[in-house]
């Protein structure tokens, strides 16, 4: 190909992209290529390769990391640790590197695990670990990889263990499902190992395929007994624990949550039955070729572990015998009382299965509890579910806080489903009535569930066809007893709302419960229960479905419906960009804020009426002077413009009102207006955490400490694992002069996200007030490293230096800031603060006046920030506040 040819393809490619996919585009390419067949094929094949996510979306960081590790291996190989001569690297995991080594003393090969330094720095933790590992070392069992020695040499802690040749079970599973004989054999060996360990009081806590080695002769060996606790996996998490800094390896390649038991996921105390559960998931995967619970994100997986019934094995692999399926399903019962109660009990049934395989005659399984075979799990109320899920997430985070941001699977990496996109007018909201679930194990009621599903679909379909489109019966019936999450179903059906219902029949009554759920965030909008006599059920069903439909109609009034339709875009690409924008925006660093601006702008370019994307754009522009030192005189108008576009597209959205408030608060200094907007946002959607947070910040600066505190509390309750909520709660506590609380909040933020600079910044600011200056500087170092050079960190350092009478250094900081300002915008507030620290009120006020001219967003701090207390009586300061329209607010 020649460059000229490529140009020709390029031109056609872009022109074709302008046209909708399908006939129109194909026809254009056809005509434009005018019989040049090779050209047409080129253009079409490029058009066919353009969409979707790809390796190009992830930076090549993994390779870079490995490159570094590999260099390290070269330095370690050949080294001698005591009697162990290191040969080569076997594997790298979250808990350290494992090397193959020669034990020169006993002339045998060993696997030598070197522990990361962080583990061993904590004496207490190390002692606990050693105690645990020593107990495990006492285990002697053919199916346990033996631990020979735990030791330390030259400051390096290591574990020497049996070197097992073979491959891990996960590698084997990737090749396809195992046959029943293999499964039963491996299961029996692992159960045997577990029985021995449990008898000695050792729980493994991390049974998963990569921890089970299979030797070439088919022997199974369980690895890492007594080690899991070290990794945090076995740690019994508590909510209050968040203040303890993470001890695990940052950025380690951590394991998977897929094998976690529900109690483990919730951070509850675990016993030997957690190992039975995890083994069950491994057996399930061996039989089905996939894990019982999967999802795009760990949150989704956890949700399933806690609430969803696994797909019956029989459905996934017809070869699996009913008795084997029964055994496996009993292992992965959600309630531990329903599982096998001991490895021994499980082993008993595995022996029977072995016999069944040998003889072909069905055997009786002694350990199976009556009625404990698979059945659809009771779906809990969504609200309660959300709380449990939040707890689970917290438990999960405490285990895996070391997970790097990049390692977390990104939210919204796939575009909205395209089902039926074309056939909908933009003003219609799509709703799906999910198949009614027959909760009681009474199959006689199944017909009733189906009939009610149909009736409700029909009744709803008649309500307001212009605005509400109800997805047809065939589409929804495929979700009967699905393992999919509501979010997934919503995406696949492109439904904004889901009606989820269940029927529970008892002796003399039938109870039907229905819920209306917003698919995007699974918020329950309405729920009700109806009781009826079983005999009158048939007559009742029309009435019932009409009642449900009517209730839903009231929740979805025409105004509301059309508002809802305007809220979301019909353009899947714009939706995808929006989700990405929200994802990066949440991180509040200069770089991610910039990325968010790009994503949101692109989304608004694709759909000019996309209110949420405009709102996101306004939020991101508003954040840029705060997090990225963007000049407010350019960011302000852009934020204001985007917010106005959002209002034009759809004023009655919480997000939009909140964006409006953000602009009023930071740029217009119209705090009363901001407060009104935030309150309106909260009325529109009480679950919108960002609006609560914004209201909290606004009230806090107005001097209304108490209400500010409770708004922040609400924000945290709604979004407990988002570090920003805690970091800004620290700000609110700081403004309220409650420095110990500020320290605590800041530490929580850091525990949740050790890479988030504002957490450290808040910590530094609070420590300065409590007089713990060393700690303040320490925190500032981290803040500086993580903030991407934010001026706030530098100026706070200058201020603290000045306050410590380190005048020379403070002055140097001042000149540094000024020097930087020659290159790019530095908020004048930064200089003002250092001058204030130096006790130069006039210089500080000069800077503040310049800040006012530049509409420096940081001036919002003046009315309430304790650092400005010495200025409150000064005439110039008061005049300045007045000029900014902020004179009626104070520290309260």
């Amino acid at each position, binding site marked *: 190909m020649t460059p000229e040819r490529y140009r020709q393809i390029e031109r056609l490619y872009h022109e074709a992209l302008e046209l909708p996919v399908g006939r129109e585009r194909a026809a254009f390419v056809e005509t434009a290529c005018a019989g040049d067949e090779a050209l047409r094929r080129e253009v079409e094949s*490029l058009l066919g390769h353009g969409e979707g996510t790809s390796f190009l979306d992830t930076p090549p960081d993994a390779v870079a990391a490995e490159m570094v590790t590999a260099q390290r291996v070269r330095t370690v190989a050949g080294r001698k640790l005591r009697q162990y001569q290191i040969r080569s690297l076997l594997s790298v*995991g979250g808990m350290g590197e494992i090397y193959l080594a020669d034990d020169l003393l006993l002339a045998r090969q060993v696997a030598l695990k070197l522990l990361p*330094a962080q583990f061993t720095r904590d004496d207490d933790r190390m002692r606990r670990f050693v105690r645990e590992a020593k107990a495990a070392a006492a285990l002697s069992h053919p199916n346990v990889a033996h631990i020979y020695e735990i030791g330390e040499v030259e400051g390096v802690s290591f574990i020497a263990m049996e070197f097992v040749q073979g491959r891990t079970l996960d590698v084997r599973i990737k090749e396809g499902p195992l046959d029943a004989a293999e499964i039963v054999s491996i299961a029996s060996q692992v159960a045997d190992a577990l029985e021995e360990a449990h008898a000695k009081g050792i729980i493994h806590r991390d049974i998963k395929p990569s921890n089970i080695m299979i030797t070439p002769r088919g022997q199974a060996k369980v690895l890492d007994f007594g080690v899991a606790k070290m990794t945090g996996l076995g740690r019994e998490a508590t909510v209050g624990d968040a203040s303890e800094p993470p001890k695990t390896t940052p950025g380690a390649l951590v394991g998977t949550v897929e094998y976690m038991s529900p109690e483990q996921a919730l951070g509850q105390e675990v016993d030997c039955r957690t190992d039975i559960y995890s083994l069950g998931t491994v057996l399930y995967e061996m039989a089905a070729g996939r894990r019982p619970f999967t999802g795009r994100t760990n949150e989704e997986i956890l949700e399933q572990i806690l609430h969803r019934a696994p797909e019956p094995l029989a459905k996934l692999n017809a070869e699996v015998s009913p008795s084997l399926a029964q055994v496996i399903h009993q292992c992965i019962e959600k309630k531990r009382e329903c599982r096998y109660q001991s490895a021994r009990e499980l082993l008993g049934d595995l022996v029977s299965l072995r016999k069944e395989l040998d003889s072909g005659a069905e055997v009786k399984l002694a350990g199976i509890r009556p009625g404990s075979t698979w059945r659809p799990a009771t779906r809990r109320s969504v609200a309660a579910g959300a709380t449990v899920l939040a707890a689970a997430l917290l438990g999960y985070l405490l285990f895996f806080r070391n997970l790097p941001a990049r390692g977390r699977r990104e939210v919204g990496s796939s575009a909205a489903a395209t089902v039926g996109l074309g056939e909908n007018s933009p003003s219609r909201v799509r709703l799906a009535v999910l198949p009614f679930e027959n909760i009681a194990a009474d199959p006689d009621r199944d017909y009733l569930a189906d009939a009610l599903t149909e009736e409700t679909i029909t009744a709803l379909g008649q309500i307001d066809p212009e605005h509400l489109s109800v997805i047809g019966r065939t589409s929804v019936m495929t979700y009967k007893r699905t393992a999919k999450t509501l979010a997934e179903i919503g995406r696949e059906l492109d439904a904004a709302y889901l009606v989820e219902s269940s029927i529970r029949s008892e002796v003399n009554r039938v109870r039907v419960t229905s819920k209306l759920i917003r698919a995007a965030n699974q918020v329950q909008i309405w729920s009700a229960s109806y009781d009826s006599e079983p005999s009158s059920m048939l007559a009742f069903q029309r009435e019932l479905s009409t009642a449900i439909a009517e209730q839903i109609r009231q929740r979805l009034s025409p105004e509301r419906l059309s508002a809802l339709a305007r809220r979301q875009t019909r353009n899947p690409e714009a939706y995808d960009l929006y989700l990405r924008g929200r994802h990066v925006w949440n991180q509040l660093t200069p770089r991610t804020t910039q990325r968010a601006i790009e994503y949101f702008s692109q989304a608004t370019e694709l759909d000019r009426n996309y209110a949420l994307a405009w709102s996101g754009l306004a939020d991101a522009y508003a954040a840029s002077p705060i997090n990225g030192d963007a000049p407010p005189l350019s960011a302000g108008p852009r934020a204001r413009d985007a917010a106005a576009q959002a209002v034009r597209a759809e004023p009655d959205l919480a997000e939009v009102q909140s964006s409006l408030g953000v602009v009023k608060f930071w740029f217009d200094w119209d705090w009363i207006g901001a407060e009104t907007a935030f309150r309106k946002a909260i009325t529109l959607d009480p679950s919108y955490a960002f609006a609560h947070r914004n209201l909290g910040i606004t009230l806090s600066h107005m001097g209304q400490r108490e209400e500010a505190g409770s708004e922040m509390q609400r924000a945290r309750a709604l979004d407990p694992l988002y570090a920003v909520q805690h970091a800004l709660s620290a700000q609110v506590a700081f403004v309220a002069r409650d420095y110990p609380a500020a320290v605590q909040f800041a530490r929580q933020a850091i525990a949740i996200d050790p890479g988030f600079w504002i957490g450290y910044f808040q910590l530094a600011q609070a420590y300065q007030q409590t007089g713990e200056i060393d700690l303040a500087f320490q925190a500032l170092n981290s803040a500086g490293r993580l903030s991407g050079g934010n001026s706030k960190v530098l100026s706070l350092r200058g201020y603290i230096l000045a306050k410590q009478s380190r005048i020379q250094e403070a002055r140097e900081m001042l000149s540094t800031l000024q020097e930087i300002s020659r*290159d790019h915008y530095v908020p004048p507030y930064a200089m003002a603060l250092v001058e204030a620290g130096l006790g130069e009120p006039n210089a500080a006020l000069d800077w503040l006046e310049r800040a006012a001219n530049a509409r420096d967003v940081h001036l919002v701090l003046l009315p309430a920030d304790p650092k400005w207390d010495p200025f409150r009586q000064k005439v110039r300061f008061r005049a300045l506040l007045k000029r900014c329209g902020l004179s009626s607010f104070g520290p309260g």
Partner: protein
Amino acid sequence: MAQPPGEVSQLLVAWNKGDGAALNRLMPLVYEELRRMARRHMGRQQPGGTLQTTALINEAYVRLVGQPAKKWQNRSHFFAVGAQAMRHILVDYARSRQSAKRGGGVRPVSLHQAMFATDERAAELVAVDEALTELATLHSRQSRVVEYRFFGGLTVEETAEVLQVSPETVMRDWRMAKAWLHRALGQGEQDDT
């Protein structure tokens, strides 16, 4: 704290003004610094941890240019050079890793699933590099857009700044180059031409 702009800054300015020779003098400096820093990270970084290439380039910038904070233009230009250097470093590594694998060599026995993931990634990098080299002969700007964005982590706007084109053009180039690379990596030699 701030240092007077050093050699690197001057070279960046010269390159920006269209002095191609400046780039040739710049590259080895940046390349060396990035390698040196990767080595230094080795002591700090825990095994298996990710190493962010953009963070490396950022750090190299701060060290070489002596600016504690970012200066938009210089920084994005530096990132462009850094992206190029990073591409060479990583692809060289990925390539040597592959040949070691083929030739037996000193490649460690890998048992861990994480290693398999990196295997794929390394193979991908080599393939991306080859496809990009080919793309450069057809449309050099498109290939540079990928280099800057993928290896250097430049944003659309920064890329536009370096290439002196509009962000829209960058997006268009990015989109088509992505399609081209997808095809090159997915279909290999079954290309139609």
